């Protein structure tokens, strides 16, 4: 009896199997205009939804993913039952409570998880776009998401939420479509990429492009530039953690009991980075990594670009940063808050205590849940 109850409880807590859906728009006669001046079409967007859209379509929340994320934010994937990347935050009774809200997550354009990107087939040549794919910006990603929201028949989103690059999309939504969202929750993000952030991304790109297997992007017949992409991801993982979280996770622990006095992975931290790097090669397209890091670097909503047209915005903001995040340091979130103060926007800002570095936005679920839940509960009050 007890076991049955436990199972029922588990069922309630989980969304079960979720299937990715696809939406194609911008047929060649009406291509999607991009910030670079170029255009692209047709465009396919992979997306998932959780919960039910209510009758007046007022309960929709858009979740935006980070650099290597995808549309599978919650529930279990049909093939290998992998939980979504933010499954701890999305589901029945969770922060984004699917009994109450209709939650949408889509893969960004330029990506490689079902949405149109450099690895997609160019209808004109019948081959993958590779470097013929146009440069994509965060604004272009948001524009594609706007097409999806239109397609779903939603006039106004209750909230847009995301961490890191997802936070940039959230800020872009608030800037481009302030009348189409009620609330925005940018987490661990920035109004513009700093030189340090651009520098890390440039090293990441150079490590991919220095691999001879990259073949100027035309590697699809031969396989990924594995070595370059793995190193690129290793660099990324170092920036996602903090000095303290690395000390706690690895310290100077050895993989075997003694030093090898060879260039093998003696330390656990080395083994971890190699494992992460080579795993990434299996799941992420190297060209997509180039395009998306460039989109991050181009992002700049500073100055008067942030919410430019309205003097007073009615969008309610919840800005969250983490004290140990050195990739997107708290001061960058405070810059967002500063800009919002100048616009007299309703703003709540938390600089949460965490030792996990940039990864905290995926790990500090308890604090995020408490905040997001209470924040969402009062959006309609004003």
């Amino acid at each position, binding site marked *: 009896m007890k076991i049955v109850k436990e199972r029922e409880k588990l069922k309630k807590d989980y969304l079960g199997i979720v299937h990715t859906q696809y939406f194609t728009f911008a047929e060649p006669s009406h291509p999607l205009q991009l910030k670079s001046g170029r255009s692209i079409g047709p465009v396919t967007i992979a997306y998932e939804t959780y919960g039910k859209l209510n009758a007046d379509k007022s309960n929709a929340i858009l979740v935006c993913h980070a650099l290597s994320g995808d549309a599978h934010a919650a529930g279990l994937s049909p093939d290998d039952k992998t939980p979504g990347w933010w499954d701890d935050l999305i589901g029945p009774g969770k922060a984004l409570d699917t009994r109450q809200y209709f939650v949408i997550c889509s893969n960004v354009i330029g990506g490689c998880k079902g949405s149109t990107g450099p690895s997609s087939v160019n209808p004109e040549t019948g081959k993958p776009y590779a470097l013929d794919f146009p440069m994509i910006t965060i604004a272009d990603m948001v524009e594609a998401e706007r097409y999806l929201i239109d397609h779903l028949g939603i006039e106004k989103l209750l909230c847009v939420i995301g961490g890191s690059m997802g936070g940039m999309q959230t800020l872009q939504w608030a800037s481009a479509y302030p009348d189409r969202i009620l609330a925005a929750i940018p987490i661990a993000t920035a109004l513009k990429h700093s030189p340090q952030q651009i520098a890390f991304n440039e090293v990441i790109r150079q490590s991919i492009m220095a691999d001879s297997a990259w073949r100027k992007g035309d590697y699809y017949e031969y396989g990924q530039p594995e070595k370059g992409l793995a190193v690129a991801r290793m660099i990324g993982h170092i920036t996602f953690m903090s000095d303290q979280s690395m000390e706690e996770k690895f310290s100077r622990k050895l993989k075997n009991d003694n030093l090898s006095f060879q260039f093998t992975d003696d330390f656990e931290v080395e083994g971890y980075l190699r494992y992460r790097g080579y795993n990434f090669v299996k799941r992420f397209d190297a060209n997509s990594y180039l395009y998306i890091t460039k989109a991050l670097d181009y992002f700049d909503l500073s100055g008067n670009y942030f919410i430019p047209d309205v003097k007073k915005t009615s969008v309610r903001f919840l800005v969250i940063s983490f004290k140990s995040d050195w990739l997107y340091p708290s001061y960058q979130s405070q810059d967002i*808050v500063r800009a919002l*103060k*100048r616009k*007299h926007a309703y*703003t709540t*800002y*938390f600089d949460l205590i965490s030792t996990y570095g940039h990864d905290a936005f995926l790990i500090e679920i308890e604090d995020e849940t408490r905040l997001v839940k209470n924040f969402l509960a*009062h959006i309609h009050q004003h």
Partner: protein
Amino acid sequence: MEKNEAMKPDHQIIIDIIHEGAHVLDLGCGNGELLSLLRQYKSARVQGIELDEEQMHACVEIGLTVLQGDIESGLVDYPDQSFDYVILNQIMQEIKKADYVISESLRLGRKVIVGFPNFAHLSARLTLLLSGKTPINEALPYYWFETPNIRFLTIRDFIDYCAKKNISIEQQYYLGKRGRISFLPNLMAQNAIFVITK
């Protein structure tokens, strides 16, 4: 407003001062008690600044907008005259740069409400005089080794300060043990609330 027995006397006074629909900033808003009352009774548009994370969570739970930060650095980014009222209630004694905070508050608020415990209250004077100990009373309830207060000021100190800085005092309220008083305030009042403008 009608007198509400459950309400703190200083909150009651501040609510009476503030006009319907005012735009209010509360510096050191704590758990948001005063702001939620202002929202409820005066439909005020309210914003808080607070440093303590637990207190901030309490604010978000009741739907208040609150910024995490210390008071000194939280003020600079607001444009002039951003608020109808800036509230500095029971916080003056804890602020490091009091002069700076008051002048910044006067810049971004049309009016500033300052509430503080009066260190010259009779019981405080007697304690110091007779027992030679740091006064402890309802308005100053801490021992010296646990108090958050870094400065002590009196009603007369504050009035002198305003005169020196060309700050005009629009209204003043004095609170004794059993409510408002007007007789010998610097001796009889435990708490004072001033409405000041530049």
